[in-house]
């Protein structure tokens, strides 16, 4: 029910409080990490490196925003990597190969995300298929469709407005980071303050009770998948803008990292608990670890080991901090 930890009978405190407290725990881990890194690497605490960190978090963060909504309703969306690839390949391909005007092509890309999300949501709510199976199937289908469309090649060059987005900055802040901030604020606001957001919490907490209370739970769940699909498409386009090409292997294997970010950030796989802020902290921790590995030049063979230990440690610290907070 709570963050890194399973519900134990002893921790009968509310998820709100639990959520907040556990986020503080994660924050603590992140702060310690930052302090240590500052001593260990001279470039770590520089503007340039933090800019890197932000940029490198963007795609993971955009994906995690949507995934948070889905997981909150006890769902899961494994299809995001496929959606990233298909939507970006189609959007870039339409404008490059078929002469569709770029803005329209980008809209089609987002539409592909919405479509895959709709299929997922429909299959989950109307056909009653387990989310894991539905989205594993659509992951495979979307990835496969991308291969059929691109025949395995990269789609390039990207339209000028896409590469401009990829390279552009506003007061030194890259557009993609600005986009992320706006999306994060939007997603936070929607989840925390709107009728829809509260319905997501309620549906995840107890679907039966929510339906009986008049919440259109099926529609709520469907919308979370659509949102997740659209955000995956956005992530795909951001990636294409960065790489100035769309590739069929975009986002391969990213789903587990995204889900990990959400769960580290306090979203429960059993629904009803989670927050955008928590998810972002989860993303930050994961990005920090990769950044540290790159900066310190951890020998290739060791980096998985380091990543695993940091995740484990973060979880353990969180548990102990919570125990401490309880007494």
């Amino acid at each position, binding site marked *: 029910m709570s963050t890194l930890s399973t519900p134990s009978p002893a921790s009968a405190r509310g998820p709100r409080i639990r959520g907040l407290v556990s986020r503080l725990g994660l924050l603590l881990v992140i702060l310690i990490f930052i302090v240590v890194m500052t001593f260990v*690497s001279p*470039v770590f605490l*520089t503007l*340039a*490196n933090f*800019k*890197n960190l932000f*940029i*490198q978090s963007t*795609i993971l963060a955009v994906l995690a925003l949507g995934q948070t909504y889905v997981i909150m309703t006890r769902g899961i969306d494994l299809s995001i990597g496929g959606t990233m690839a298909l939507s970006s390949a189609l959007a870039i391909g339409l404008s490059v190969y078929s002469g569709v005007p770029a803005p329209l092509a980008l809209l089609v890309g987002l539409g592909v995300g919405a479509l895959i999300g709709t299929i997922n949501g429909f299959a989950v709510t109307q056909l009653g298929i387990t989310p894991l199976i539905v989205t594993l199937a659509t992951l495979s289908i979307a990835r496969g469709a991308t*291969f059929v469309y*691109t*025949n*395995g*090649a*990269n789609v*390039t*060059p990207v339209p000028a407005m896409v590469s401009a987005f*990829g*390279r552009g900055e506003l007061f030194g802040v*890259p557009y993609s980071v600005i986009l992320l901030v706006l999306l994060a604020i939007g997603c936070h606001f929607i989840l925390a303050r709107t009728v829809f957001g509260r319905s997501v919490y309620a549906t995840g907490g107890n679907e039966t009770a929510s339906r009986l209370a008049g919440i259109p739970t099926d529609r709520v769940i469907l919308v979370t998948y659509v949102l997740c699909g659209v955000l995956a498409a956005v992530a795909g386009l951001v*990636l294409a803008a*960065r*790489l*100035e*090409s769309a*590739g*069929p*292997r*975009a*986002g*391969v294997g990213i789903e587990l990292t995204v889900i990990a970010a959400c769960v580290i950030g306090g979203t429960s796989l059993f629904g009803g608990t989670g927050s955008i802020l928590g998810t972002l902290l989860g993303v930050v921790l994961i990005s920090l670890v*990769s*950044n540290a590995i*790159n*900066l310190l*030049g951890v020998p*290739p*063979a060791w*980096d998985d080991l380091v990543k695993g230990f940091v995740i484990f440690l973060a979880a353990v610290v969180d548990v102990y901090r919570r125990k401490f907070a309880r007494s």
Partner: protein
Amino acid sequence: AAQDKKPQIAVLLFSRGFEFMVALDQGARKEAEKLGAEITVLDGQSNTEVQTRQIEDLIVKGVDAIVISPNNSTEIVPAVRRANEAKIPVVALDAVVGEGADVVTYVGFDNAAGGKVAAEYVASLGKKKVLELQGAIGAYHAQKRGGGFEGEAQGKFEVLPRPAEWLAENAQAITADVVTANPDVDAIFSHNDEMIRGVLAGLRQIGKTAKVGEDGHIAVVAVDGTPLALQRIRDGEQDATVNQDPFEMGALAVRSAVAALKGETVPAQQLLPPTLVTKENVDDPALWGNIFKP
């Protein structure tokens, strides 16, 4: 009667989603058509277990010859041995099949030489500190290219090796982080051209956008000679690539398989030479990257 039947050849690529692999596929298909052979191409999903199953299934299906680009040279040995036992000739393509099983021939590219060529070029530019983006840890090409490159680098320049798993997304973060941490990195060598998409994105991210010949340019060299790489060389974003020829490689593999079926002798090893492509020769119409259509 068996003679009038078209020979059935299966081509097992370890992966796809690399333009290089797509070109291998095309080269093989075209040659098969020319020689009147029937061809099936399967994707190994970067997984030897998958390739092992494919060989097992193809033995049952009764194909006449197998061309395999192994995901892992050691692990594929038992499966190839089963093909040997079933008397199906096997051609190794793009990477060798390890000891313990027989192949008709190994058709490939001198990866170690390729790495060496890249290192010589980097040295000729007078570069002193080079970020090396490696393919998948333990992969045959990655080991050979890395070995050739690092061997030649000895005493000439410093190398910072980082594994990027052939993935552009990984290459981007690694490039940005490593160059930020080591501002004196003055060249980047990538085990394939695919990852250069990420290298350039990483360089743009940290504002290192100086082109070839401009002040502060970080030299960029890779392997393969993909269409994108040639375009980047024209645009001055990439300095050079070590070209291999997948069309010819795929064709040669199929040709060798057909020859073996006819009982002709085929040399045990047929290596295509690496050629350096720079701005000077980038428009050579014979380069596969200038011909390739997905």
